[in-house]
């Protein structure tokens, strides 16, 4: 017997590998769509807030409320509530594809808030200087706000990715697969503690990797 088998007698390693792959697919897919939806939403929140470039306090109030509601529903509940929506969009309500819709709807508002906060950190004077040079709002967003807040946006992406790792683990409970599902299935229900240990360790490693990539990128783009 190999040392791995002596240490973890219950574990089916190919199954673990498959679960890792599933988690990474869910994470990659949901992170991509979260960024694609959350970034414009965050910019929109920023621009419409009181005193900003396109202040529309009422619209901002509505956007803000929607974001807060989505952020305050526990993810596991959101997942169950969204089953019909998921079915309509992807045709399935379980599995990796089925998990991505609730993951994105749960994470995009969270990410949008972080984007809004990062944009608020941009020096007002710089925005004003761009206006004084005759920049359009679109140019200010793409050439001033986003580049100037790049470290903040990268940090926001890291935090969101880490949160999504947690969500994907929860997604496992409603049959999305992945490491979380394994931990739940064998570790909790089937009482095989070595499964729990290995899956949790792998999740910790994943979070560590994400965080250190994020930190390194923030360092690379910080110019202050």
């Amino acid at each position, binding site marked *: 017997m190999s040392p791995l088998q002596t240490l973890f007698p219950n574990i089916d390693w190919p199954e673990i590998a498959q679960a890792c792959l599933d988690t990474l697919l869910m994470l990659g897919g949901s992170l991509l769509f979260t960024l694609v939806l959350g970034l414009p939403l965050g910019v929109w929140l920023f621009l419409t807030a009181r005193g900003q470039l396109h202040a529309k306090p009422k619209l901002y109030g509505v956007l803000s409320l929607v974001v807060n509601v989505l952020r305050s529903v526990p993810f596991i509940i959101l997942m169950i509530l969204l089953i019909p929506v998921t079915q309509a969009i992807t045709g399935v309500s379980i599995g990796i594809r089925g998990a991505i819709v609730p993951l994105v709807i749960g994470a995009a508002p969270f990410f949008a808030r972080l984007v809004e906060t990062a944009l608020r950190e941009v020096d007002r004077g*710089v925005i004003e200087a761009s206006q004084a*040079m*005759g920049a359009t709002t679109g140019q200010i967003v793409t*050439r*001033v706000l986003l580049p100037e807040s*790049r470290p903040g946006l990268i940090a926001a992406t890291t935090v969101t990715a880490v949160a999504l790792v947690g969500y994907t683990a929860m997604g496992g409970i409603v049959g999305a697969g992945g490491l979380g599902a394994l931990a739940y299935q064998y570790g909790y229900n089937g009482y095989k503690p070595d499964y729990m240990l290995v899956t949790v360790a792998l999740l910790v490693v994943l979070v560590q990797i994400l965080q250190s990539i994020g930190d390194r990128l923030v360092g690379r*783009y910080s110019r202050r």
Partner: protein
Amino acid sequence: MIRFAAASKSYAVDGALVPALHPVDLTIEAGEVFGIIGHSGAGKSTLLRLINLLERPTSGKVFIDGRDVTDAQGADLRRLRAGIGMIFQHFNLLSSRTVADNVAFPLRLHGGKDDATIAARVDELLELVGLAAHARKYPAQLSGGQKQRVGIARALASRPSILLCDEATSALDPQTTASVLELLADINRRLGLTIVLITHEMDVVRRVCDRVAVLDAGHVVEQGAVADVFLHPRHATTRRFVAEADHREGRGADFPGVSGPLFRLSFRGDATYSPLLSSVVRDTGVEYNLLSGRVDRIKDVPYGQLTLAMHGERLDDALAQIRAAGVDIEEVAR
């Protein structure tokens, strides 16, 4: 030429309109360096920002080169702004871009220029402000004076006819201030552009401005040629600014132990360096005590301002002789 016609500005604060600038009538001629001086909160920035419409007047109008721009919108407004450069107290550079990219920023905004043209223009501008060696640095790697030079290069990139300076030297030390002011004066001479400069220091006005307006609580309380305003301030606020520049705050004309009438003599131009007082003393036999004074330059023109106590039998002859030499005399109340 920039003209304010009864232009005013009020800000909405907690639902109420609070006036920051009362109706102002002011004309700034093409090619001059015009100073606006006032204490913090006097409305200087507000007045300056009416020119490029970062603020819209609440009432009244703003004309640039005879054209009413008060309601300019959209592409028209952006074109107008491209023709007006602006520099700021805190420089407001893009921290994520290099010096060269900061200067290129306005050139890329308006399109129609290829990379080679832009690169050549950036080189030319960095040369002008003496930063050619720093093109690849980021703003965080520069000193305050260097950052302001980048700001100036960026403001000049689109070849504006007007340059607005909002407390451009207030964050700089005295030496750096002097070199930035020299650069501004040089730019004004060489490129002939109109400079509107706001400051809370009379010394800045004295060194570079042709004319000045004094702003106090949203009112223009005094305006005119710098030499006139500086040597003969009429409004109390102006007097305080001039006194600050002379480092004689609060002392006024209080000279204990000195008897006889006090006079303030203002020399301008060539008269400043002539041996006038010694010839007057020789001719009329009056005596004088020099109590305070300063000999310096207003922009390029030498001036002197001396406060004297004078007495003697032929005092009136002495005063007449001084006046005849083109020197202003004011009797100072004590």
